[in-house]
């Protein structure tokens, strides 16, 4: 029986998280000697993009009623085409809204925030993030059907090209309970949870007017920007940039923390970053204990210099 995967798209375009979920589904399928079937709602991107990561079949749901997102209606649509006992979702905001509703509809177990390929498939057991990044849980599904959501940037995107085929399913799911009034998408900004490099700053930057140098460094690195909780609380930066226990948990390849002391709540949201660089004028800042590389010094001098040096190496 095929392993299914929900390939999320935004306005028809597949997200990196979708490719990561397909890569994960391929690993699950390989363990079980199965193939991968991807499900997507109203995609405009080519299915070739999903074959590249291991999806042998792609089911494209076409439904004008699903033009706008509704967790309930999307769960209903996925449920109608799902014909297997295992389905993988990315742990994005939308996908992790659909997954719990689908779990109830299908009477499946749901394990969210998974980090690695399953430890066993019968019963399904897998390592997942818990305690906001301060620990891990090995979770076991009871019963035969299981849904997992894959924590972003944890498993990685893995090319595994197969030859695939596509099937179009025309549905008309009722979507009457919610209606979109307006939709604002900031253009050209990297999604913090998907970003492979994140440049983050705290109160050490002394004021919002100094964020230009943080953004300059982020720009040369192709990074997203983030901030500590006090900075978003006092309104220097939007709360959507707050990383930490009560903000966003992220796991980029490189996390650069500038003027952030490293409270336990902040570490909880970032300590699964693969490499951490801490820049702080206080040599006693606790964050240095959790960093791979540290620089004690004045951010206002270090940031412009570092930006120039990285610009040089990036050519």
């Amino acid at each position, binding site marked *: 029986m095929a392993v299914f995967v929900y390939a999320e798209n935004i306005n028809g375009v597949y*997200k990196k998280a979708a490719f990561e979920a397909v890569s994960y589904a391929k690993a699950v399928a390989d363990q079980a000697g199965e193939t991968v079937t991807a499900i997507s709602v109203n995609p405009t991107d080519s299915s070739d993009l999903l074959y590249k990561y291991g999806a042998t079949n792609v089911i494209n749901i076409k439904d004008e009623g699903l033009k706008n*997102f*509704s*967790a*309930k209606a999307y769960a209903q649509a996925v449920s109608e085409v799902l014909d297997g006992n295992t389905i993988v979702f990315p742990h994005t*905001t*939308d996908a992790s*809204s*659909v997954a*719990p*509703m689908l*779990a*109830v509809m299908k009477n499946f177990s*749901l*394990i*969210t*925030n998974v980090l690695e390929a399953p430890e066993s498939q019968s019963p399904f*057991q897998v390592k997942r993030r*818990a*305690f*906001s990044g*301060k*620990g*891990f*849980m*090995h979770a*076991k*599904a009871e019963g035969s059907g299981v849904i997992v959501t894959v924590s972003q940037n944890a498993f990685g995107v893995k090319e595994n090209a197969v030859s695939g085929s596509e099937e179009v399913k025309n549905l008309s799911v009722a979507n009457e*309970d*919610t*209606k*979109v*009034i*307006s*939709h*604002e998408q*900031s253009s050209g900004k990297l*999604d913090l949870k998907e970003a492979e*490099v994140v440049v983050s700053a705290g109160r050490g930057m002394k004021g919002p007017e100094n964020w230009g140098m943080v953004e300059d460094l982020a720009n040369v690195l192709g990074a997203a920007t983030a901030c500590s909780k006090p900075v978003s*609380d006092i309104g220097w930066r939007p*709360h*959507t940039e707050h990383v930490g226990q*009560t903000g966003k948990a992220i796991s980029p390849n*490189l996390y650069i923390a500038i003027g952030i002391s490293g409270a*336990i*709540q902040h570490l*909880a949201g970032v300590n699964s970053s*693969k490499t*951490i*660089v*801490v820049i702080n004028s206080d040599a006693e800042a606790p964050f240095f204990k*959790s960093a*791979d*590389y*540290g*620089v004690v010094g004045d951010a206002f001098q270090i940031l412009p210099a*570092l930006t120039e*040096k*990285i610009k040089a*190496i990036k050519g």
Partner: protein
Amino acid sequence: MKILVCISSVPDTTSKINFTADKSAFDKNGIQWVINPLDEFALTKAIKLQESQGATVTVLNVGDATTEPVIRKALAIGANDAVRVNLDPKDSYSTAKEIASVAQNGGYDLVLCGKESIDYNGGSVPGMVAQLLSQPFVNASVGLDINGNEATAVREIEGGKETISVKLPAVFAGQKGLVDEKDLIIPNMRGIMSARTKPLQVVEPTSSEVKVQGVSYDSVPPRAAVKMVSPDNLDELVRLLHEEAKVI
């Protein structure tokens, strides 16, 4: 209007997380318990609706008797009454079943929860409750207004936000931004005193079906010792990131 706010009792955000010697469970020794911070945003939003629209606010917790101090704190913040389902929750599904059962019987217009709890981070309960109740569900809510039997909610989406209208009854999962941090209510003495006499009803669970078991737990392995680089030698930092860590 009747609002049900689901709260979870979680370790204080400053807690160090340890597991029992056999790694089979979270070690609760020495832990200070608080209202899940994301639930607190939902609770504060409900209190604001209570003030502006005369809504009644019931807090609901699925937990054993040890969670009652946290429930009393929610009452001190301003909830009218409370329900505790007498069950040490084992997974998201069993918790959602109990919440849905209370919500169904109480005829609530709104169910408000935090997007996830900061302990087990399932993020599954609100969506499951919505499906069990066959109600619409809005996750990651950062804005909510009520007008009659319709809500206008703002939800965070990747790289932006979306404003939607939702027919009530419905389930909303809130997060930071649903109310401002500065608007979170710290209970005053009057609130604390009145919370002692507000009704806290204890009900027995309706089912014991569990769909996910926590088999074992691990702590986060420590990182290797930090390599310090002089601020006068940033070339070395760039070299380390490029050649050693291979991240730029």
